């Protein structure tokens, strides 16, 4: 029993990750080997053909998609953290007229299903801002979500006030207190929010699928949808693209696992 249990857990865990291992191994197979039956596990003649074929193809420029995704997810995360931190600080520490109304309205939108925003935001992004088929449409509108403000406000409220008061007594103004005292104390929370925002944006699917059209403007997720909708699906190419779309987020997850898991277990953000 004592030996069996770890073995069973190990086997189950291996089975659990097997689709991902299979994706990785298939991406190094030839077109023919990728779809042979019975499937081979280890590529008999490992090749980078699939990667070479898709990385710079004009209709499916996967490398370009990779850069697009990096760019949008990074800028999106910065935008979320910057705007949410400022707003959350005001809501956590400053007294002003209308504060309860502002906070109430922001929090109540946490319960509004995002589907209600899709059609009108398409019009706003398309007609008012002319952002259709542009990465700006992926970076900016989703940064308006209430989660970041809510999350950071909770964190700021837990910070001891003494340090801020001492800084005020030393003659610092609001901005200096926020920038030099509060932000440095909040690094873990800011990192968690940045990370979750990066992941969410990197994996955003419905919106990029409909808002981006040109091959060179797509993100990886929207691009994957194009690749798999092709008339004759090439699984070797699809798996190579899937690997490219997975590696950055998996790496980030491995490096910053603690922040991601703690962020989720503390507050809960579902995709």
């Amino acid at each position, binding site marked *: 029993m004592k030996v069996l249990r770890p073995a069973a*857990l190990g086997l189950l*865990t291996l089975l*659990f*990750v097997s*689709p991902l291992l*299979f994706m990785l191994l298939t991406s190094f197979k030839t077109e023919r080997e990728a*779809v042979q*039956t019975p*499937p081979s596990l280890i590529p008999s003649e490992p090749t980078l053909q699939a990667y070479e074929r898709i990385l710079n193809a004009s209709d499916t420029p996967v490398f370009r998609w990779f850069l697009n995704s990096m760019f949008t997810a990074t800028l999106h995360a910065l935008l979320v953290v910057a*705007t*949410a931190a*400022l*707003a959350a600080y005001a809501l956590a520490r*400053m007294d002003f007229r209308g*504060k309860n109304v*502002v906070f109430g*309205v922001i929090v109540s*939108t946490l319960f509004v*299903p*995002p*589907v*209600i*925003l899709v059609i*009108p*935001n*398409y*019009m*706003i992004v398309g007609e008012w801002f002319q952002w259709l088929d542009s990465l700006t449409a992926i970076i*900016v*509108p989703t940064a*308006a979500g*209430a989660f970041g403000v809510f999350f950071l406000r909770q964190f700021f409220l837990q910070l001891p006030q003494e340090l801020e008061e001492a800084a005020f007594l030393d003659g610092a103004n609001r901005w200096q207190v926020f920038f030099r005292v509060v932000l440095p104390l909040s690094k873990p929370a800011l990192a968690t929010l940045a990370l979750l925002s990066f992941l969410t944006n990197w*994996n955003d*699917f*419905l919106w990029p*699928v*409909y808002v981006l059209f040109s091959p060179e403007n797509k993100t*990886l*997720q929207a691009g*994957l*949808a194009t690749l*798999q909708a092709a008339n004759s*699906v090439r*699984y070797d190419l*699809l*798996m190579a693209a*899937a690997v490219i*779309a997975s590696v950055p*987020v*998996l790496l980030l*997850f*491995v490096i910053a*696992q603690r922040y*991601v*898991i703690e962020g*989720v*277990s503390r507050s*809960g953000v*579902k*995709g």
Partner: protein
Amino acid sequence: MASPTRRSDLAAWLFLAPYLALFVTFVLIPIVYGLWISLHSWDFMLPDKPFIGLDNYISLMSPDSVNFSPFWQSMQASAIFTVASVPLLLVVPLAVALVMNANFRGRNVVRAIYFAPYVLGVAVVGVVWRFVLDTNVGALNWLLGALGLPDSIAWLSSLPAAWVALVGVTVWWTLGFNAVIFLAGLQDIPKELYEAAKVDGASKWQAFRNVTLPGLRQVTAFVTMITIIASANMFGQSYVMTSGAPGQETRTAIMYIAQDGLQNFRMGQAAAASWILTLALMLLSLAIFAVFRDRSGGETA
């Protein structure tokens, strides 16, 4: 007179301004604007967008309209998926969390592995599983065949196999997320309670029923709520894996709205549909909320 409150007012609004600009433009205005769009015969491509009152809603609600059956079929698909996936998305993650809650070497690695699929996007998850589930060259059918079971199941284009596939993949994809929340809940249960149960001679199962489950009530309510909402909003799995097949059986409500509005550009109709779906989701949330409040109130009394 520049009173301190006034100055603080100004500073506060300056801190809020960047976020509020985003919030007003991409959340508040769209809520109202969407309602406005739903009252028009609105096509993105056409200059004329005549006001038609409640016609879009009426057309979605009257059985003799051509829009009635596609819309309600998609609502039904979302409902089927929700009913089928939520119990599994509660039980399996809870089981995983219970395993993780035990002390063993490599626990953090195992926890990370079970969480890992969640950090992948639905597009990656969808294409990987589309491959594994392929009727002819997929690994699953091959494995079933090797075990002497039926080996030509059309996982992505027949019923009920497609629902099994969509639910199974979703469980694989998101179980780590719910498990991590359950695990945090488990770790908040005071160890003394288990020791007390042991002293009283409770079996493991009794301890689970009388200590673990009550201790997890709040967490369970939260996880149930977000899981139901997430499942009712399912889009990517169907979009990537089945494209709604067979027929439009697995096309979910969100997929209907996206295709009707952003592909066929019948935005008035799609906006009306998204309002109906939103009201349904809000009623559902209220119902769940009421259930959990009643139950916890009843048991503490």
